[in-house]
């Protein structure tokens, strides 16, 4: 890179910005999933120059209070390294308030709130075309499908779309019989590996496309699944596409988007810094929610 070239002439020194924090901060990461039990991950940041090890405080008092309902406590699960309450279920269209106190760490209470959006059915219209080409001795097939966004809730702007492919593979046994194995080849249809959406960028770190329909002009989303390398020696007898469509709270969307941009820009030689999103008062991270519905297409 040119910086390397330019620095051939120059020197490097430590840089110590006077604003660098002298003490760690708390990071909350929680996406309340409708129908699931509440879960909150809590970690500390790492200071510049410190070893790469973040703490997961275990003595925090994590309380969630649903709107018009009693608050409840989350306990620390040492295996999952997160705070959970398996007795509670997250409900759609409900606002939740979060408070976290860790007197041993900091005196201020962390707080945030989020509302769980209503799940939305995606209404996948149709498979537009299927093509099989021969090239370089391999088979390829192209699939396009259009997702109608016209009927989405006008008050709900943020979504995540994940696509999974399930293939039933038939293998011939030595005795001449056949075995059937079902594989979920999520790698194939995950970000950038065979699925493209016009005007959208896939976040491989969240394995899905993030949509802000308020900024979209089109009334439908066109998915192109292309160039699936198909090994002729594998006998696929059935394939299904799963469309996992999640309605996201604004905070979940913003956090996932900012993390995606941050990672991508840090990998680019000409990337720009991204200001981290947070809706946590007195802390970092996010407290958000999502509701998911799955549509299926049999290929």
């Amino acid at each position, binding site marked *: *890179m*040119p*910086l*390397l*070239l*330019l*620095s*051939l*002439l*120059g*020197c*490097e*020194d*430590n*840089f110590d*910005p*006077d*604003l*660098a*924090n002298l003490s*760690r*901060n708390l990071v909350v990461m929680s996406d309340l999933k409708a129908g699931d039990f509440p879960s909150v991950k809590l*970690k500390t*940041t*790492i*200071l*510049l*120059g*410190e*070893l*790469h090890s973040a703490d997961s405080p275990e003595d925090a008092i994590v309380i969630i209070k649903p709107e018009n309902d009693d608050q409840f406590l989350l306990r620390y699960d040492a295996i999952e390294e997160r705070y959970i309450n398996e007795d509670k279920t997250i409900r759609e269209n409900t606002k939740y308030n979060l408070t976290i106190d860790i007197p041993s760490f900091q005196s201020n209470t962390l707080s945030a709130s989020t509302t769980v959006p209503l799940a939305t059915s995606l209404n996948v219209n149709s498979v537009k075309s299927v093509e099989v080409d021969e090239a370089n001795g391999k088979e390829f097939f192209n699939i396009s499908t259009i997702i109608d966004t016209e009927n989405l809730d006008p008050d709900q702007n943020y979504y995540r779309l994940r696509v999974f492919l399930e293939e039933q593979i038939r293998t011939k046994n030595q005795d001449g019989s056949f075995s059937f194995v079902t594989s979920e080849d999520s790698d194939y249809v995950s*970000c*950038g*590996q065979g699925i493209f959406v016009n*005007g959208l960028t896939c976040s*491989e*770190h*969240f*394995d899905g496309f993030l949509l802000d329909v308020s*900024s979209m*002009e089109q009334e439908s989303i066109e998915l192109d699944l292309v*160039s699936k390398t198909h090994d002729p020696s594998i006998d696929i007898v059935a394939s299904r596409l799963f469309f996992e469509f999640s309605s996201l709270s604004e905070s979940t969307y913003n956090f996932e988007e900012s993390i995606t*941009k*941050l*990672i*991508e*820009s*840090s*990998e*680019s*030689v*000409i*990337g*720009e*810094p*991204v*200001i*981290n999103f947070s809706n946590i008062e007195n802390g*970092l*991270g996010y407290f958000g929610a999502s509701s998911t519905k799955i549509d299926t297409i049999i290929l």
Partner: protein
Amino acid sequence: MLIQIMKRILLAVLFFFTLLLSLSAQVRPDEIRLDYKVLEKGLEEVLLELSDKTEVNIPFANNLIPEDYSVTASFRNEELGEILNQILNKTELSFKIVGDQIVIIKDEYKYAPDFITVSGRVTDKLSGEPLAYCDISIESSNKASTTNEFGFYKMTIPNGLNRIYYRYLAYEYRVVELKAKADTILNISMQPKALLNEVLILDKSVDEVSSPDQQNTSLALDKLQSIASLGGEADLASLALLSSGVSSGADGVGGLNVRGGSADQNLILLDGTPIYGMGHALGIFSNFNPNIVRSANLHKGSIPARYNGRLSSVLDVKLKDGNLNKTKGDVSLGAIALKSTIEGPLSPGKSSYLISFRRSILDLWIQNASEYINELNEREGSSDFYFYDINTKLRFKLSNKHDLNLSYYRGKDELGNSVNSDAADNGVLTEELNADNWQWSNNVLSLKLNSQYGSNFFGKLNLYQTSLDLSVFDYQRFIETSNNEESLFYSAGRYTSKISDLGLKYDLDYMLNDHNYIRFGTSIVRHSFEPGVLRVNEGDQIVEDRNLVTVRLLDDILEADNRTANEIDLYVEDDIAIGKYTRLNIGVSLNSIMTDNTNYILPLPRIALTHKGKVWSMNIGLSRMSQFQHMVSNTALGLPTSVWLPSSAALKPENSWILNAGTGYVTDAGIGLAVGAYYKYMNNLLSSQEGGISNIGEGIDWDQSFASGNGSAYGVEFDVDKRFGNFTWFFNYTYSRSNRLFDLLNNSQEFDFQYDRRHQFKLALIQKINKNAEFSLNWQYGTGNPITAPVELLPFTDVNGIERLLPIYSSKNNTKLPDYHRMDIVFSFYNNFDWAKQKISLGLYNAYNQRNPFYIDLRNNPDSPSSLSLFQYSLLPILPVLNYSLAF
């Protein structure tokens, strides 16, 4: 006794008063009244008769009396003076009263008007090139003027004898005693005080002394060759950076930022044609070979209506046209570049040529040095960098009033780097490749016809094509092999930005009278843009051979978007002289652009009041500016990864208001002082969103993906200079603030602009040791540029289970780099031979080796590999200044 004494005193007083009365009662000779009648008599006879009748001596020289002139007249009780007036009325004769005589004299101005017009051209005596903005003044009158861009001047002066002064910086002043009774054409040629490679000393007793002009700074080309610069490579950019209110990144990287504006907000004119100048070497050097620059003016405020198209400033650079009289040339070799110029007549006095070439010679040692450094770090590969520019001009004097100029400029930079490294650890083999290539080039082709219509109308027709072509390719590949399984990760990017303007510009100057200099004109420009940005990685199946990503491969994938826009501008301005020292420039420009099925029309008023007295000066101005072309930079480092985009339905034109005011004073010792302030408000500014530009191309609705916002800048500037004598110096101090507010950036909070250097102090000293040697020193200090630095790290695990440490940025431009300061010194030695003049420069750039930070990076700390730390990188340490030049 007493009575007698009193009588005598009384008599004496009476005698005295009687004498006074008799003297006062004596009639002047021209007031003697008489009756006189004459019929067809010669003038000589008439004069003798009048002398006889009045007993007034009327002497005259016989040769003055016209022989064939006869007089017929009749007067009754008329004064002699009136009679003479009437009978001499139709001659060139007049009379003058000398004691009690009336002397007949010749009066050549008798029929001349009270005021006459003197006009002409001021040219360089050696090259024949016109000198623009040469000061012209009348010694005993309230009259002053300057030449226009064509070197033409025109002014009204009293008839009779006038002493006219012509003053032009770095030229011998001229005084012409003009005795004229009718309109006169006076062409003046002026002798340059110093040629290339000569010591120049200005003398305040003859050269114009004025306080520094903070709004329209005429870059001191006389100091260009004297001031120390990187590698001894004199350059306009480094000279402009010494002006108050101008900042940049470290060591000039990133170009010029004028009064809180960004580099793309500078209108750079190359002989009147806009150039999308990114400069050479990331902006450290300007596009212009300094040896052929004739004048350079930096307008920071009070911008006249004839300048349009950018928000913040105008750098108006005029190059030499070529010597009409004699073949001349120069060649110089420095640590940075080799350059050479040759110019001369094609047909003496009628046509000329100029060819100038400059090429960096850095690649001679950068390649070897980078190879050596890579080897030391157990890597393979090298880096390379070069730039060049070429100027060619042909000038044809079609007539005394028409000049045809054909010029072509091309400048190019290329920077390449490829580094490969292998490592093995516990049976795991890793191979890492980093490669990139950056290229940017400018082309400017121009055909100009300069015409003079009549005595006060001038036209300048310019048909031009100007373009910028920028392309960047970067490729990072990481291969990990373990147990015969190979994992490959790569990231590659392709950035292209082409902008091409085809324009026709017609400027007209009309010298209405001594008080009104009117300019008006129009331009029609077709802009073509081709922006394209593409990033791919191992997840993209669009690159089949992942092991080898090439420029051609990405070019095949990337479909740059093509957009066009048509711009039409109209302007009119009147430069009104109010007395000798005060001018009011008032004008308006109407800018319009048709793009993307959208039309924008912007009226841009300008007004500036300037008083430039001999001792003190003042100025106040208000300008509204606009900009239809947006440059979106993808990095805060000022690297050439900027994409030029046109205004569209989504991207509104940027516009600004600039208010400036200042005052100046000149001391008896010839020291000029100036203080000024400015305020600038900018809106519809464009920026990439956080994360940078990721994808621009055909079919992508990319213009929705930018952030639009506002900005403001204000500051105070102090300038002090001494330009005359053996020891000259100047220093300036600038206090400035510049900030931005974008809805989509920094959580909608205001943030400091990346080139917001809060305090800047610049000093330059030049000591002429003798006629063959001089010493110069310049020192610059500026508070650090704002940067966005991480304050801590966020542990993050993605859905695939990959753990990362992500930098946490609390806000945009949340801290500042350490203060920048640097001192350069140089000794220059001059020798004159019969056939040439040589100059040798020896000195030090960054003389005390200050490690000025250029950028910061977050990476593993070598002292503690399991931790991340910030490191600052300095660009240019102490470096030798070494340059040899020869002018012939």
